[in-house]
């Protein structure tokens, strides 16, 4: 069934190598408004992944050829820091970061009310400081919090989550070993309030039943992360405000 036959990813007791249950997420921490120079910003730690996102705008779209007369364009730049992985990454744009920037922009366009800002551009800069599988999902989550923090009108927040398959077992939130040696990976961007899916990619093979289990896990995780996102956004103002609303 594909994969790397001899790599053990599940322990005898049914838990995963890092001790998580199959439907257990890595620990997530979120902070909003960490960058004073940006219009909106967020910091997300998801397991060992660390992402920082800054949002600027809306501003006049330049170069002019990217302007849309009826809506704003979202300009996403996803970038991994050279020190984010064990092998140094060559700084700058590459094929992978271009792809992730593009799919992230498309996912965000479905939640941001882009038609409110014709001819404008909203710049979203996602910087991955530490990577441990699932950075595109962490980037999407960070971007959603940063956009909300910047006061950009949105239909909903969007949460990036992933499930996958290791040793013929569906698991939630793959870590690095599971991502590298597992059989499938299904990252998704979910609108937690309505349960809509704004972004979906699949790497590897999943049966229909396995796919449904992944969906179920992802929706569950999205709701959990959504609570943390709201908490981060509210904490920013309520704490400074002496806890009163």
């Amino acid at each position, binding site marked *: 069934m594909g994969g790397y036959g001899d790599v053990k990813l599940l322990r005898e007791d049914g838990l995963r190598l890092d001790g998580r249950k199959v439907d257990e997420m890595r620990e997530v921490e979120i902070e909003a408004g960490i960058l004073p120079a940006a219009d909106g910003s967020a910091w997300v730690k998801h397991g060992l992944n660390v992402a920082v996102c800054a949002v600027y705008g809306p501003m006049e779209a330049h170069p002019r050829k990217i302007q849309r007369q009826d809506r704003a364009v979202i300009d996403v730049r996803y970038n991994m820091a050279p020190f984010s992985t064990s092998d140094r990454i060559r700084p700058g744009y590459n094929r992978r970061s271009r792809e992730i920037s593009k799919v992230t922009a498309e996912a965000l366009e479905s*939640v941001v*009310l882009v038609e409110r800002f014709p001819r404008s551009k909203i710049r979203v800069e996602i910087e991955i400081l530490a990577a441990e599988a699932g950075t595109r999902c962490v980037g999407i989550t960070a971007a959603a919090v940063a956009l*909300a923090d*910047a006061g950009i009108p949105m*239909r909903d927040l969007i949460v990036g989550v992933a499930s996958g398959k290791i040793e013929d077992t569906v698991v939630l939130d793959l870590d690095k070993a599971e991502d590298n040696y597992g059989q499938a990976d299904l990252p998704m961007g979910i609108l937690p*309030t309505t349960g809509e899916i704004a972004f979906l990619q699949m790497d590897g093979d999943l049966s229909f039943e396995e796919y449904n289990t992944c969906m179920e896990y992802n929706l569950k995780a999205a709701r959990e992360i959504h609570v943390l996102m709201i908490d981060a956004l509210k904490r920013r103002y309520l704490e400074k405000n002496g806890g009163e609303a």
Partner: protein
Amino acid sequence: MSGAKEGAELRLVTPGEAIGASSGARAGTGTLIMGDKIIATRVGWAKENNGVTSVDPIHAAYMPRSGDLIIGVVESVRNNLWFADVNGPFNGLLPMSLAPWKVEFGAAREQMDIGDVMLARVQEVDEAHNVVLTMKGVGLRRLKEGVMSEISMNHISRLRGDADSTLRQLKEVSDCRVIVAENGRVWVDGDADGIAFMRTVLDLVRNEGHMATFNASLEALIENRRNA
């Protein structure tokens, strides 16, 4: 307006959060009707007023509306028009016909050059966000002296107070001319001491403008200045 959050029924909401049923209520600014619910589209304080549910955003970009008094900074000059940064997503355009001077074609720079600051009004905004400014009107002019600084959009009402009461007090104790423009820019002119006092006030607005304790802190500052 963050100043309105002293009311008991206000609550902090985030995008996507349901803030009421759509039947019987109208969706105001910062909200959207989705199915049978009204949802918030911004982080801010949800409120209901005369059957209109709306969200006062905590952080928002300046969106020009016609009639706004704004402070603009000239960004580029053409033969017969100026482009000004109005602290919004798009530059404002000031045509020669709406400027207070009669200037020959090509001599626009002689009146106002890049970096100059102007007090202007928004003449019109079209659906594509083209902003036209005017400097024809009482008090509209090029600001040649004084200092300009920026505060966040949602703090404007706190600096002004009810019916401009706070602003009047500040003008009186600082002995400065102060203009709080609709685009979040504040112009202050007076003696050095007065300007320094206004700087501390603006710092307070920036750092504590969203807090419930803001008015008390500002009162203390004004009181201090009166007794000094």
